[in-house]
């Protein structure tokens, strides 16, 4: 590259430059810091589609494929969800008043997850086997566990209330420490 060519390429981005501001996205998301870790929260068409511990790139790519590629980081669209989560994590809220959409879940995961708030209750735990029985899949305790592990709506759909028959916490997308935190929180509040 000649001297002239490199002079042409040297134009810098000024310090006051800002990214664009766009209308509300088909999928709006925010990264929300909580005592149990950073949650990626997303809404589409007024419904919560994600509340997840996964990484931003993987999750937004899944959302782009499943819903629409117009996915934007727009925390303002998540104000209500964030407020309710904060209240819950403070022990001031026992249930969520949110519309949810399990579009990121498979049909079996949907069967397991959609009625979780009915099959569990605040401050109480149930077991994988019990839950499998309640959704009329008594032999599917292991598959139920896997479906809960894939919950795209962590905390909002309380998969943390389901534990092993022997009392082991077993597993949680946000780590066992997070699961313990949520169960302690619910038993105290």
């Amino acid at each position, binding site marked *: 590259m*000649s001297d002239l060519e490199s002079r042409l390429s040297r134009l810098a981005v000024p310090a006051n430059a800002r990214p664009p501001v766009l209308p509300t996205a088909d999928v709006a998301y925010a990264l929300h810091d909580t005592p149990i870790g950073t949650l990626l929260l997303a809404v589409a068409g007024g419904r919560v589609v994600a509340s997840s511990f996964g990484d931003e790139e993987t999750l937004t790519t899944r959302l782009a494929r499943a819903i629409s*590629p117009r996915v934007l980081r727009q925390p303002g669209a998540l104000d209500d969800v964030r407020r309710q989560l904060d209240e819950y994590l403070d022990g001031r809220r026992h249930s969520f008043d949110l519309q949810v959409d399990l579009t990121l879940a498979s049909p079996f995961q949907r069967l397991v997850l959609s009625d979780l708030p009915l099959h569990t209750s605040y401050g109480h735990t149930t077991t994988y086997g019990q839950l499998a029985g309640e959704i009329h899949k008594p032999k599917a305790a292991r598959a139920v566990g896997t479906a809960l592990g894939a919950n795209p709506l962590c905390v909002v759909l309380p998969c943390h209330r389901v534990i092993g028959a022997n009392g082991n916490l077993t597993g949680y997308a946000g780590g066992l420490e997070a699961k313990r935190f949520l169960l302690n929180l619910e038993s105290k509040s």
Partner: protein
Amino acid sequence: MVRSTGVMVSEQVQLPPFQALIDEHWRDVIRLARALAGAVDGDDVAQRAWEKAFAAYPALKSARNLRSWLLTITARCATDLHRARKPQTPLDDAPPIAVTGPDADDWPDPDLWRAVNELPERQRLAVTLKYVGDLDHHGVAAALDTTPAASRRLVSDALTTLRDKLGVHHV
């Protein structure tokens, strides 16, 4: 023999989340917009380019060359603004007036950018897309609706003029 439906899935365009385009390319878009339209108008051009890209994005047929696609939209927005601002003149051979372009004094290397501003319009676009936009001649050609050979010629003519004006020589 029954064929798997996997074939259909692989043919779908899998566009990345729009936020990834912004995070990766917003600086390049604003750099090009400012180089083509100046500091003040450049910000508007960049904003309008993103709005257009956002509106058109879901219908995009290919996820390849998204950066080049964004820079092409940016160049078109700058040209639209340029045309809208250009004083109407009945004379076809009126000298090119740089109504837009960098506010040369605010930029590093003001002599260079003043000279770029005075280039014929297509040369100015080509040389800016090539060096500020960092596009190859295929990318420049796509943005200017022309051939790579024509892009090469536009850029080479622009560089010759700039060297003459600035008194620099190819080494």
